């Protein structure tokens, strides 16, 4: 019987029989934590009686959540992570050279096609854009992977998402994935693997594929997988930190479910409070006034995202009542955005710009909301209290909608304020 991409990836890493629902002991290619999830992983690692991580070049801690250290308690967590990483000889990067883990690790060639990746962060599924079985776990599971070089998985059923047609240039990967989550709900793919296919998926630049894979967990999915193609291999080949072997699904694979979407019918959307599935066309939400706009995060802090935001903000200014916070997701993205003039555009428009951090996305720092405030964000979840006070509101969107809304001070479809000729060409930006 043919295998789905998820089954083929698991089969390449286990000697156990791989059938839907079976539990397999699986070899792990790379296992990472961040400054928040690292601390409990380090203490559990010790409680397990483990002494050395299974391979220091395949184990990492990325200090990205509460960094640059927001207070003394956070500084201590990062210190503990740094000390552990040094003692183990494993990968660790200081602020200024690092970035938001799910943007940074693919950039460093540490997440590669055909691999099994475990991260103590729910958005580890971002790595699925490269055709890796990448999934989030808690700190104890991560500590076990550091100790053993393996984990266990129940083989998930696969939901194939086939996207036909051609999307308008105003429609980004974010609009596609929010529309999907709006259709299937926040547990529509609970425990399943999503496998994205079709002409509109093939047409997505890598940065948009990362966005789509990143949001798979917001539908409850264990993984959000793209079948490797020329773009994937082009991205991976020039960055790979180790040899890799891409894995593909069989043509006769059996899928639990197939969802078909037509990209030509998509439009810029937003997810209203307090669930990523509460999706509406941006054009219908113009009455919602904003106090803050955030462009960044592991979902939409990459170069293509900043390119689109800069296209909107070029020659325009941020509304006087709005704070616009822009956080390039990695040092490399920041440097390239600077070279291309995007950073200058943001500054001239009146934005506040920070070094790479998860910061406001999870209510850490650099843009926390007061009670009654409303923020439009390019991040991934809009749960109660996610970016600050429990009585604040968060709306999710693409960088195009976010930048347009920063200009008008209310939720805005970018077509309302600009023409298509102002948009950069689609395709690769890296």
């Amino acid at each position, binding site marked *: 019987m043919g295998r789905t991409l998820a089954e083929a990836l698991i089969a390449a890493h286990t000697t156990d029989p791989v059938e839907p629902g079976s539990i397999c002991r699986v070899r792990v290619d790379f296992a990472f934590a961040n400054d*928040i999830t690292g601390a409990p992983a380090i203490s559990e690692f010790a409680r397990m009686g*483990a002494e050395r991580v299974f391979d220091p070049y395949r184990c990492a801690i990325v200090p990205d959540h509460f960094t640059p250290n927001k207070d003394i308690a956070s500084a201590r967590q990062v210190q503990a992570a740094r000390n552990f990483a040094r003692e183990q000889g494993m990968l660790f990067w200081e602020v200024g050279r690092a970035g938001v883990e799910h943007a940074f690790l693919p950039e460093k060639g540490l997440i590669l096609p055909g691999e099994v990746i475990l991260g*103590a962060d729910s958005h580890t599924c971002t790595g699925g854009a490269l055709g890796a079985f990448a999934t989030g776990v*808690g*700190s*104890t599971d991560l500590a*076990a992977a550091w100790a053993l070089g393996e984990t266990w998985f129940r083989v998930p059923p696969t939901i194939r998402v086939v996207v036909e047609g051609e999307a308008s240039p105003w429609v980004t990967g974010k609009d596609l994935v929010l529309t999907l989550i709006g259709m299937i709900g926040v547990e529509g793919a609970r425990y399943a693997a999503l496998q994205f296919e079709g002409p509109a998926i093939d047409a997505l630049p890598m940065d948009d594929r990362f966005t789509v894979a990143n949001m798979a967990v917001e539908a*409850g999915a264990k993984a959000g997988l793209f079948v490797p193609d020329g773009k994937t291999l082009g991205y991976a080949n020039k960055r790979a930190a180790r040899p890799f072997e891409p894995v593909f699904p069989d043509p006769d694979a059996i899928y639990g479910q197939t969802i078909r979407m037509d990209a030509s019918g998509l439009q810029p959307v937003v997810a209203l409070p307090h669930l990523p599935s509460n999706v509406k066309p941006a054009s219908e939400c113009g009455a919602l006034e904003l106090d803050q706009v955030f462009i960044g995060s592991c979902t939409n802090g990459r170069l293509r995202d900043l390119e689109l935001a800069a296209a909107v903000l070029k020659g325009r200014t941020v509304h006087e009542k709005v704070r616009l916070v822009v956080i390039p997701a990695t040092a490399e993205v920041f440097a390239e955005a600077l070279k291309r003039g995007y950073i200058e555009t943001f500054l001239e428009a009146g934005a506040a710009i920070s070094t790479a951090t998860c910061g406001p996305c999870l209510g850490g720092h650099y843009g926390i909301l007061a009670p009654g405030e409303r923020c439009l964000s390019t991040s991934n979840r809009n749960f109660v*209290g996610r970016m600050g006070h429990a009585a604040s509101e968060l709306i999710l969107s693409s960088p195009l909608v976010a930048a347009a809304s920063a200009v008008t001070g209310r939720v805005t479809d970018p077509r309302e304020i600009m023409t298509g000729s102002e948009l950069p060409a689609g395709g690769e930006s890296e």
Partner: protein
Amino acid sequence: MSDRFSGKAWVYGDNVDTDVIIPARYLSTSDPVELAPHCMEDMDADFMKRMAPGDVLVAGNNFGCGSSREHAPLAIKGAGVSCVIAASFARIFFRNALNIGLPILECPEASRGIKAGSRVEVDLAQGRIRNLDTGEEFSAKPFPPFLRDLVARGGLVPTVRARLEERRRNPS
């Protein structure tokens, strides 16, 4: 922890996410004692003021969705909650709870049939849930044998410890 306990039910709806179970502003520590006072704070500010150790959380679908933070089951366990019963669990929370030894039961019927404030009795080994106010009984979905073993061994830490000891005895 014993396999049988009873307590008052605290009932919540679908998609209780880990941000409301323990907001990120408290994640500068992973000590259950420090996390527990803020458990469910953004959803039900009265929860920690009024709950008693041994009480049971009852919720709808997709309990624990969102962030992978193990701090969520740690905060619930630290608060003294004896068990979480839900119609379904988000997958990372599910693993985390079993790994750290927070008892969870998946049971859509109990999730629908138990009202806030009901007295609930749970037999974890049997997966039986009893509403002491109405006498209704529910059976939770049994775990596969692999997970039953994990729970019986006391979670993931002792399981990995045993695997490491085995490897030291029989290096391959």
